[in-house]
């Protein structure tokens, strides 16, 4: 089901949670909506679900205007951040709730509950159907919430930060499972998260929001590699920001009007007396600290009175260095107020 929103505005008091959101969520795709807290992503999800009525704008599902329809008439299911599993009901009763409201025959309810539990791979846990939510782990609760949502065979699945209550290891595993489930079922899915890594890894389409607006959308690789906006560039990845411009020889020099952004993984640290490679943008700096992050070491380098991050396979010793970044990896947002794509410095 294709979902289209146009000109969505929602204010809570004087605060605009949505300030004119227009976007099309493609049918059968998993769209991740990412942005900082308060950017309006959960409000957008709740407007799609029908729990919040927009002050302005319309919502279309498969070309049908559903703006004024209640949640139950939209053929969508929402998985809540806290899962919202009813604690007094068993797993079976939770998953069967929506089916029973549809007055399906008992045998069909049982069959569809089992199918839903199998889809989230809970069918292998003995006696899971009779357990109450408090008797389940966080990961199991998350899967029951998913099973409850897909049991009613929605055409639109909405997920509101579904992994935020899980520890890192379980989060990674469940993320892969959600992706696989979405591919298997082909349900149009909108996945809201504030975790950029989660969004990048899970999405077919990435939507970045800020201040109640969609600032950029596209394939995750595209948005990451070619941010159109300094906010997107800063928000995605470990991004350094310098008020500087690039000289003729590639040297980074302070500039009040200049704004250069580059990511920590693109930085190369060279000895202080080394010549920067051709085609790179560079500056002299001083390593002030270095942390081991597991997969890489992150060095903190003071450049132009600003501390920037540089990721490396080996630890960097404190002291003077030359910091070099391939010119095509530097995003130049000089003289720009958030409009248009970054200019490559090469």
């Amino acid at each position, binding site marked *: 089901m294709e979902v289209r929103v146009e000109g969505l505005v929602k204010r809570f008091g004087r605060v605009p949670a949505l300030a004119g959101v227009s976007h099309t969520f493609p049918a059968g795709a998993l769209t991740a909506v990412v942005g900082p807290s308060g950017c309006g992503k959960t409000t957008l999800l709740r407007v799609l*679900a029908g729990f919040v009525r927009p002050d302005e704008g319309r919502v279309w599902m498969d070309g049908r205007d559903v703006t004024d329809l209640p*949640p*139950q008439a939209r053929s969508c299911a929402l998985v809540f951040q806290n899962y*919202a599993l009813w*604690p*007094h009901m068993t797993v079976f009763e939770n998953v069967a709730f929506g089916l029973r409201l*549809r007055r399906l025959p008992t045998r069909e309810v049982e069959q569809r509950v089992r199918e839903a539990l199998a889809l989230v791979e809970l069918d292998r846990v003995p006696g899971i159907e009779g357990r109450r939510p408090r008797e389940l782990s966080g990961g199991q609760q998350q899967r029951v919430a998913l099973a409850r949502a897909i049991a009613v065979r929605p055409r639109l699945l909405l997920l509101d930060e579904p992994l935020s209550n899980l520890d890192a290891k379980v989060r990674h595993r469940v993320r892969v499972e959600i992706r696989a489930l979405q591919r298997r079922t082909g349900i149009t899915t909108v996945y809201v998260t504030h975790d950029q890594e989660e969004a990048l890894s899970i999405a077919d389409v990435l939507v970045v929001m800020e201040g109640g607006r969609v600032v950029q959308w596209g394939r995750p690789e595209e948005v990451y590699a070619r941010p159109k906006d300094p906010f997107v560039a800063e928000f995605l990845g470990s991004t350094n920001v310098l008020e500087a411009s690039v000289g003729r020889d590639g040297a980074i020099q302070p500039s009040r009007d200049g704004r250069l952004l580059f990511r920590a993984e693109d930085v190369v640290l060279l000895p202080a007396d080394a010549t920067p490679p051709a085609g790179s943008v560079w500056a002299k700096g001083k390593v002030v600290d270095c942390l081991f992050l597991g997969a890489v070491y992150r060095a903190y380098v003071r450049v132009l009175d600003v501390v920037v991050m540089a990721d490396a396979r080996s630890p960097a010793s404190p002291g003077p260095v030359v910091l070099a970044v391939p010119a095509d990896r530097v995003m130049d947002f000089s003289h720009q107020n958030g409009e248009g794509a970054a200019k490559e410095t090469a």
Partner: protein
Amino acid sequence: MSRWERWAWGLATVPAVGVLVAAFGLPLLQSVGASFVREGRFTWENYAIVYRLYRQDVLYTLGVAAGGVALTFGCGIPLAGYLRLRAWPWVEFLLKVPLFVPFVVTGHAMRVFLQPSGTLAAMLTAAGILPPGARLGIGEGWLGLVLALTWKHLALVVLLLVGAFRGVDDSYLEAAQGFGAGTFRQIWAVLVPMSATSVALALVLTLTSMLASFSIPLLMSRGSGPQMLMIDLYYRFGQHGDFEVASALGVVSYVMASGAVYAYLRSVTR
């Protein structure tokens, strides 16, 4: 916690425990003891008198209290549910009004309203539902008492239930609503079970309060037929000076209220 702190905290509880023992524990023990004594000897005779003279009143009291609780919760749960799901400040304010009306005033008002030729009868006559001069019997019987006790207790019950229902996170209700649950289903399938402890507590408080109601039944009673047990107790003690049988009636009241408390404790510890 150090030993000194334990002693200090122990000492701090002494006044409260002292008041509890002096004002409740000792009189309770005294009345239980007195209920088994007549003319200085141990006997079951007081209970035999209670059985012979008051067994109908015990059943009547239980029936009125049960009916009152059923009506109060039958009205209170939907009202509290609606107030939780849709904020109606004026309705909420109006529902709290009976909290500030004393029992005696409630009894008098309900007597005036429900008596055979009272306000309700006049309204029904004016509306053509009752023929002119007909008498309305509600106020004199158990139904009038149930209505009066419900009116008085509804505000407290709604207050307790709305508070409990507001403790249920919106997401649980929205999850149900998203699947197509209407208001009634959200109240009965989500709000009530998720607030079961508070509902049980409100139920016990209401039942014990209705079992012990005195001024409303006294003002509404017609002086014949079955009476609420507290009125019997008052007359037995105040009019007849029969402390022993009054004590036995008191013990029967304790047992009735204890049954509700036991059921509540079972429900919250299960």
